[in-house]
């Protein structure tokens, strides 16, 4: 089931494969202080080989790679179980927003540091009373001399325990209702007034954090898009998160291959069909992704992708779990992550609403 790749892409693939084979190593958990530092160092090595953000323009540290090449990179990356990307929130969520809505100044200032993991970004979307329903946010941004003062609480902020900066949505016009009067802002997690409280995950390690904001100053230059236009800007980022960019098929194809290996080592015929079904699902996702490269990777179509990969990921890990009987460490992190899949980036229930209303035209 090889892809039909052009010569340039084949050459790129060979380069990536060679570099990875000589560099990949196992790092400590991303959710520990040491592990975070190791992952930051790994990002720098990637950046030095110009492999950290291959699809970006050269001026920001990329190599203008095509979407096809990016997918190839991801396949190679995951097939050798290379380290998790600590820069993920920045390069996959914030960067697309900056490319679309940012200023030249913002791009020049922020993207190169992001590409080298000099600055690692956390996302600050959810609030205790606003999970799937981002429009009901309560944290506020009040305009002041030269900028804004942030106040409120964010939660489920991934990477925030050790990251440098964060981005999110704040209510800047309290009189406007729901989708209106929101502004998209970036802020420094080390700034005065910021308190970060890690949230221990199932394994006891802090994958997420709560962020408390007490009159945190943000200069005007750290607003993305127009003040009050944050909803539109955020929806573009949310689409990125739900869609292709966060979940390249390489990740699932690699997990499916590991599952098949696991099955060969523990061949329980009763689980064979589930193993093959999960493998087939990963292939279908891969084929769907490559087959729809030409289509826009945003809008309601990404809801289809979100539902698919998140349920596939759970199925892959649950099958592995059942094959093993116990949770082996090498599957544990992926399994925790898979459980969160149907929940974050807009729960799958919300995605199904989107598909029903916008793609199938069903009445409210």
């Amino acid at each position: 089931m090889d892809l039909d790749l052009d010569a340039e892409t084949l050459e790129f693939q060979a380069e990536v494969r060679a570099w990875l084979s000589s560099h990949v190593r196992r790092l400590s958990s991303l959710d520990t202080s040491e592990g975070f530092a190791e992952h930051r160092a790994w990002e720098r090595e990637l950046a030095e080989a110009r492999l950290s953000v291959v699809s970006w323009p050269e001026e920001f540290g990329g190599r203008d790679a095509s979407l096809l090449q990016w997918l190839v990179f991801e396949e190679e990356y995951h097939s050798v179980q290379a380290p998790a990307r600590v820069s993920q929130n920045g390069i996959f969520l914030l960067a697309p927003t900056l490319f679309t809505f940012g200023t030249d100044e913002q791009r020049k200032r922020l993207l190169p540091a992001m590409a080298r993991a000099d600055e690692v970004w956390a996302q600050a979307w959810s609030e205790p009373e606003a999970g799937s329903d981002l429009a009901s946010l309560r944290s506020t941004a009040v305009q002041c001399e030269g900028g804004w003062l942030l106040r409120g609480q964010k939660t489920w902020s991934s990477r925030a325990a050790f990251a440098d900066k964060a981005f999110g949505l704040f209510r800047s016009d309290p009189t406007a209702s729901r989708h209106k009067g929101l502004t998209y802002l970036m802020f420094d997690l080390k700034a005065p007034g910021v308190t970060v409280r890690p949230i221990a995950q199932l394994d006891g390690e802090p994958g997420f954090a709560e962020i408390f904001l007490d009159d945190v100053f943000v200069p005007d230059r750290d607003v993305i898009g127009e003040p009050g236009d944050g909803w539109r800007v955020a929806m573009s980022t949310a689409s990125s998160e739900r869609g292709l960019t966060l979940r390249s098929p390489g990740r699932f194809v690699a997990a499916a291959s590991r599952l098949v290996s696991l099955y060969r080592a523990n061949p329980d015929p009763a689980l064979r069909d589930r193993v093959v079904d999960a493998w087939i699902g990963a292939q279908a996702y891969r084929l769907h992704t490559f087959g729809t490269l030409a289509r826009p990777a945003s809008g309601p179509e990404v809801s289809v992708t979100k539902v698919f990969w998140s349920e596939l990921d759970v199925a892959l890990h649950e099958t592995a779990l059942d094959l093993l009987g116990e949770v082996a460490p090498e599957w544990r992190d992926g399994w925790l992550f898979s459980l969160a899949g149907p929940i974050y980036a807009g729960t799958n229930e919300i995605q199904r609403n989107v598909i029903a209303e916008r793609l199938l035209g069903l009445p409210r």
Partner: protein
Amino acid sequence: MNSEQLALRSSVRALLAKHSDVRKAMELPRGHDPDLWLRLCDIGVLPIPAEYGGSGASLAETHIVLEELGRTLTPSPLLGATIAVQALLATGNDEACRRLLPGIAAGTTLAALVSSDASERDAQGHRSTQTSRSLVLDGDVADVLLVADGSSLFEVSPDQPGVSRVHTPTMDPTRRLARITLTGPARTRLGPAPDLGHVALAALAAEQVGAAARCLELTVSYTKGRVQFGRPIASFQALQHRMADLHVLVETARSAALAATDPVSAAVAKVYCSEAFSKVAAEMIQLHGGIAITWEHDAHLYFKRAHGSAQLFGSPAEHVRRLTAMLQPA
């Protein structure tokens, strides 16, 4: 799809809307409407090069037409003929192609491929003199039989002693299938017979996806019109989410079908599209309520086609077994 392909799809869809009558066609002697088949051949739906009297359509175009035929469940020789044509072209036998393909392209000659196993042997270990093959597409109504024995392709005239052809109705009344038994008939070797399994599976997958997509469309449309408790039932979230899941399934099945270009991806497509179509057809019945289990409503025809297609060219279980054997650790 390029603009020519879009135009092809529109014209086929219009033709079928006007002339396809599934209930009538499935009762006709050949199991399909011969006039409609001639019209389709006029459009040039078969993947036959111009030098052999064809339209020069590629397999991609044929798949577009198969998807349309799947949507409407129109009984048609296209699936069987496509595979037969590919087998014939693969022999490289220019004479046979010149002799047979123009008639096939025009729709006046119906060809069926019979894949028999070269290794078939009797109890004593001798090569059996009798081969029998079931589920041969259009096998009993074809004008020419192309028999592949694993290494060679032979031309066999159906009207001779040594050829027995029996129409074998299955659960799916919209697909014409036959059992062919060959007891040493006269045959002419045409050339080598490559494995066309993945070509057959890819063509079938296109048809399955078309049918599955149509099931979902019909279900969406029905639930929007059906009012219960003072609201269209399509407005109930539980039903919306079921249809949303079906949409995800149909879209990914479409991708799997489009990408089926080698034995592994074709087996993946077979398993995936079979399960997707069966699932959508079963949900169609559930979401339509009582009306779906009446003879008048087409839902049961889609359901039967789904189950019949799953069994064609090897069941999903067989393909899963093959895939299991093929899968190597990363």
